[in-house]
């Protein structure tokens, strides 16, 4: 596999995204909205005790985990279904590139923008959160080990999971909106993790629990990689993709 080929494909997709302003708004507006809104609310309820705040604050990191599931759907639906709609996959497949190189290129193109948007949003979120809670807690709550695990382990794994799921979904649909709607279903297990934490079914404040959830995401990623690879077959794309 030649990474340079995948990067050429991903770079072309970045150029295509840059022409679609709506896509950029959708990518960055929600993470930044959360980044500004939640610290604002926390500032308003800052009368809570230190103990309550330290239980309260880690839960918000999981908003970004949920975003990691939903944001790639927006992008992935453009990278694959968009190519189907524009009928541009056939000439692309006729070039001297392998299926894996194309798939990786599409994967990179669907991974980087949402990951960057989430990192940007969470950076603003943590900075503002520290700003409003520092006086109450007496220290900067973010970043911490758990937030780092969420952002740099669980979020990328969740983005990869979403990208792979969307590739599998793209084979079955022929319009961008349908792909997005089906793609968003991948958010459900991530919301399940968040709700389980809120209901104390899983203690998401424990680093070991986060690592276990990260491990499960990794296993799901590997399974979905095989599913996506099996779906993205040159002949299948040309003869069966609707």
């Amino acid at each position, binding site marked *: 596999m030649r990474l340079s080929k995948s990067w050429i494909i991903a770079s072309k997709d970045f150029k295509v995204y840059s022409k679609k302003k709506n896509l950029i708004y959708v990518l960055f507006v929600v993470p930044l909205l959360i980044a500004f809104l939640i610290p604002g609310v926390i500032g308003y309820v800052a009368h809570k005790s230190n103990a309550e705040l330290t239980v309260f604050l880690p839960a918000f990191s999981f908003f970004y985990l949920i975003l990691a599931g939903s944001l790639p759907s927006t992008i992935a639906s453009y990278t694959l279904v968009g190519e189907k709609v524009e009928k541009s996959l*056939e000439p692309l497949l*006729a070039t*001297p590139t392998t299926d894996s190189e194309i798939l990786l290129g599409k994967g990179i193109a669907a991974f980087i923008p949402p990951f960057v948007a989430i990192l940007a949003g969470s950076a603003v979120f943590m900075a503002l959160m520290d700003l409003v809670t520092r006086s109450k807690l007496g220290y900067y709550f973010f970043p911490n080990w758990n937030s780092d695990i969420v952002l740099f382990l669980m979020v990328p794994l969740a983005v990869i999971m979403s990208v792979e799921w969307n590739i599998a979904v793209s084979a079955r649909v022929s319009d961008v909106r349908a792909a997005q709607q089906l793609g968003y279903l991948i958010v459900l297990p991530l919301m399940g993790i968040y709700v389980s934490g809120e209901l104390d079914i899983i203690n998401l404040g424990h680093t070991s629990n986060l690592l276990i959830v990260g491990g499960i995401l990794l296993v799901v990623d590997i399974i979905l990689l095989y599913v996506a690879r099996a779906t993205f077959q040159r002949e299948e794309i040309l003869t069966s993709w609707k």
Partner: protein
Amino acid sequence: MIETENLTKKFGDMTAVDSVTLHVVEGEVFGFLGPNGAGKTTTVRMLCCLISKTSGVARIGEYEVGNNADSLKIRKMIGFVPDNVGLYESLNAYDNLDFYGKLYDCNETQRKENIERFLKMLGLWEKRDVSAGTFSKGMKQKLAIARSLIHDPKVLFMDEPTANLDPESSKTVRDFILKLKTEKKTIFLNTHNLDEAQKICDRIAILNTKLMALGTPQELERSVSGRKTVIQLEQTSDLIMTALKKVTARNIAVDGNKLTIDVVDPEKENVAIVDAIVRAGGHVQSVIVVGSTLEDAYLSLVRHDK
């Protein structure tokens, strides 16, 4: 340059292409005619290593279609214009070509030179910074052709390159194909357009799942329906008819003083026919050779197959 032997493709129980054997030489413009669903696109897709073959052998140059190690080499030496142009509509013409140039491993200088050369040849250079999505069908088709040539391929597969184009754009594309022929490129042209095939193809194959006929346009015209000589006489007579039956055993249709005679080689046969009429006391007013067209040949083969 392109060789197939009993090339077959089945989708489940349905045979899309059945034992096609053909040989296209270097620098030839080879037309591939056939009705919808005849297997033309499937054949091209097999030859471009886009889909697998079920059985048979196919080679492009020295490389074998279906051999994984050769697939990338084949795709590198061919250009492909699909029936749907498949451009990136939000990108401009230059970026569309530049992307493909990179995928074909052309260096920056090569890309710049080829993009400028082909966009200028196809009259799109002034529009290089305009989004492909705003182009007319003809312009998009030209851009797709430029894209297929960006790496200077030896073999070019074109699937219906003039379908849905206005006459002027069709002519530009046809002229461009003829220009490519002078550069010794081998062109495999899928088309429904018989007139186009007749004008630009050196040889033509007629496909209807199976290969129905193969030859030059002239050979196909003759082999399938033959030709007719139409003779207008001042007056027909039994004497003339008897004389004609002695020189030709073929069908003679009489309509008043007009005789229509089936011929295979009118240049040779007409001399004897006219001579027989004159010897029998006939006065010939006009002699016209009516050639059966490629369309006659095509329809005869396709209808006969049904």
